[in-house]
């Protein structure tokens, strides 16, 4: 069950804009136990210099995973989703994702490796606003477990 190694270096076009909403940020913050009022209280967020409430540090995954899906469902990539586990995740924030942002993600397949019967695919999603301001680089490594 070979993952297509020639996919390394491939880039997918930017996805449709994701509108970051204040209530989605609140819902996500509650779900992960993030109690900093900067996620829910607009006045507090503004007092700290943000335009509006900001998302918790891992919120970007919600948008990045929608971009990653383009690769996972690409039949030529050869990825069996039922064998995928998340190996590694990283976020480099250029500025916090803020309510009101319209975010697009451009997916890059950085590396495809085989090791110990498993395949490892590292993708990088560059998230930016529709105005072109960079907000976050999300890097993800998935492991596709080999067949028995």
């Amino acid at each position, binding site marked *: 069950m070979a993952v297509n190694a020639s996919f390394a270096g491939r880039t997918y076009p930017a996805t449709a804009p994701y509108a970051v909403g204040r209530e*989605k940020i609140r*819902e*996500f913050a*509650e*779900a*992960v*136990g*993030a*109690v*900093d009022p*900067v*996620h829910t209280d607009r006045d507090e967020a503004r007092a*700290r210099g*943000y335009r509006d409430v*900001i998302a*918790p*540090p*891992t919120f970007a*995954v*919600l948008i990045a*995973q*929608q971009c990653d899906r383009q690769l996972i469902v690409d039949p030529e990539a050869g990825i069996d989703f*039922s064998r995928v*586990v*998340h*190996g*590694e*995740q*990283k*976020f*480099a*924030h250029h500025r*916090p994702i803020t309510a009101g942002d319209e975010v697009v993600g451009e997916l890059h397949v950085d590396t495809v490796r085989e090791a110990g019967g498993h395949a490892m695919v590292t993708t990088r999603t560059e998230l930016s606003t529709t105005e072109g301001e960079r907000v976050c680089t999300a*890097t993800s490594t998935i492991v596709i477990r080999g067949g028995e």
Partner: protein
Amino acid sequence: MALSVADVQAGQELPGRTVHITRATLVQYAGASLDRNPIHWDERFATSVGLPDVIAHGMFTMAAAVNVVSDWVGDAGRVVDYGVRFTRPVAVPHDTGADVEVTGVVKSVDEAAKRATVELTATCNGEKVLGRALAVVALD
């Protein structure tokens, strides 16, 4: 108010916490994050694909762990860089749920850049569930 670089030294320990995870936690996270993979909420499905039980989203554990850093630094927006490896799944039994213990320690401080790197440790039943968990914070 975010922490000042003068208040932070390498070796400093952050206040840790225990994160209790139940099936309800995972359903709530599945909805909020849009990660609806049934291995996180359907025990029959999870065991049919060889897992011991329903397992927590790795991204839930990653998110819950960094709260230790956000609360310590005083502003979640100061977490500028955060990465982890998922070393072991967190099984969440129906009856008991699971407890993840999170601790953090300052590994280094860059006084010129006003940044500190915190290493997080997250364990469940004594075993590490996150590896190389590093968060960089911007200080005042």
